């Protein structure tokens, strides 16, 4: 909801009565005052005459035809709007809706509300700055969607299966408003009741458990696009802790949204299940690493894995990536002392395999590093898309 004292007013223009009622309920529940639903442009224009809404949710095709006049009026009055339409975004031919946030119908009511929240927040900020609301709102929205370059969740899931435009749109909405979380912050603590599925969109986080003497074992790294425990809502309590290692962009997906994704979007569901299998396979590989590989091999293996995973989501440049970890973090990951981590890093640099400077790891000889670590990427199942 908006931080303003008065409830935001949403003009709802929707030709389908049932969809209209659903959206009306969802928006009202989220604290909005709803004008409408208007089924025709004439009706919507009438409502617009009486009250200036904070924002509008419109279908471009209403019962009396395309709502060109309504769009023009909204723009003239500086009312930001989002389009919720069966017409796909890439089929838009007219320029009157260009730049407007777009949800393909039928979108989950939660998604519509989330986008309204965002629009209303950004338009509030824009109005305060004295900028024309609508334009600034859509610009800010684009900045916030984390999809400016490539959404890491979509990139990761598309590695497993083909996604439709609608699938990508839904995932884009889910990722639309990540929270910035500082480094070394617990996202979920052992013993706590889980609160939704944690999705990392930027930075690095980890899963870990600790002994009573404070000794810690990290059992997974969470990289951009990684999502923790799809079915975590089934658990009464967390059995481990999830903590950011670097500054992170984090989304907490409510259990209902996860359930909707799994039920209504088969391709996304398949990709998410696949990603759970890969998480488990990675954990097995890490167990092998910690239990049976030498210090040098463990570090080499970890660096190879990170390169492959970060490349997949567009977070590595060629053979180089940010490694925002301390030697203690690496020690807790590989079950080594910081002394052995330091020696291994020195040895890998001495052999000309890596360069680690200012938190940036550059792999200088990947084939040799793979040999040292005994790294084969089969457990990451990156080539399994065809089989899915």
């Amino acid at each position, binding site marked *: 909801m908006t931080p303003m004292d008065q409830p935001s007013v949403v003009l709802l223009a929707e030709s389908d009565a049932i969809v209209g009622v659903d959206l009306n309920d969802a928006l009202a529940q989220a604290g909005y005052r709803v004008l409408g639903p208007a089924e025709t442009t004439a009706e919507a224009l009438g409502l617009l005459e009486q009250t200036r809404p904070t924002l509008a949710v419109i279908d471009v095709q209403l019962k009396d035809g395309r709502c060109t006049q309504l769009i023009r009026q909204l723009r003239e009055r500086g009312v930001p709007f989002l389009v919720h339409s069966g017409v796909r975004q890439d089929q838009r031919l007219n320029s009157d809706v260009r730049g407007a946030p777009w949800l393909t119908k039928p979108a989950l009511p939660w998604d519509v509300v989330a986008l309204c929240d965002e629009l209303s927040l950004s338009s509030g900020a824009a109005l305060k700055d004295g900028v024309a609301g609508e334009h600034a709102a859509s610009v800010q929205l684009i900045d916030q969607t984390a999809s400016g370059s490539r959404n890491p969740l979509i990139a990761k899931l598309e590695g497993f299966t083909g996604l439709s435009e609608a699938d990508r749109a839904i995932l884009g909405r889910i990722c639309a408003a990540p929270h910035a979380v500082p480094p070394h912050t617990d996202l979920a603590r052992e013993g706590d009741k889980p609160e939704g599925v944690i999705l990392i969109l930027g930075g690095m986080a980890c899963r870990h458990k600790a002994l009573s003497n404070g*000794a810690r074992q990290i059992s997974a790294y969470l990289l951009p696009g990684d999502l923790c425990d799809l079915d975590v809502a089934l658990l009464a309590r967390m059995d481990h802790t999830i903590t950011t290692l670097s500054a992170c962009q984090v989304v907490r997906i409510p259990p209902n949204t996860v359930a909707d994704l799994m039920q209504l979007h088969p391709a996304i569901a398949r990709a998410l299940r696949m990603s759970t299998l890969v998480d488990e396979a990675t954990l097995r590989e890490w167990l092998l690493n910690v239990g049976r590989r030498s210090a040098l091999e463990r570090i080499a293996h970890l660096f190879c894995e990170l390169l492959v995973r970060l490349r997949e989501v567009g977070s590595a440049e060629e053979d180089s990536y940010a490694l925002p970890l301390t030697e203690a973090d690496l020690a807790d990951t590989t079950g080594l002392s910081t002394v052995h981590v330091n020696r291994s890093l020195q040895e890998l640099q001495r052999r000309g395999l890596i360069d680690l400077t200012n938190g940036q790891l550059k792999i200088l000889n990947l084939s040799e590093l793979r040999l040292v670590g005994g790294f084969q990427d089969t457990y990451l199942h990156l080539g399994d898309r065809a089989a899915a």
Partner: protein
Amino acid sequence: MSLHLQPVQVATGSNDAEGQLVLAGQFLVAVLVRLSDDHGVQAGKWFLEQGFGRVDHASPPLFGDLDEAQAWITWRLASPR
């Protein structure tokens, strides 16, 4: 039980080569290694390269000097677990 030390070179595969065998009577209980300049602020400290029996430890501390290391090893030898 008193400990005694015996200087030794340790092939750690790194520049950390200066070591001490730590003996309790006839028994070798630990190998300590002095950290080289490769370790930055930790250089000069002593690392429990290997502890045997009760001196074995998954996350041992670094020791500022050999007296500190011996005190810790004595404590471990006396510990019930």
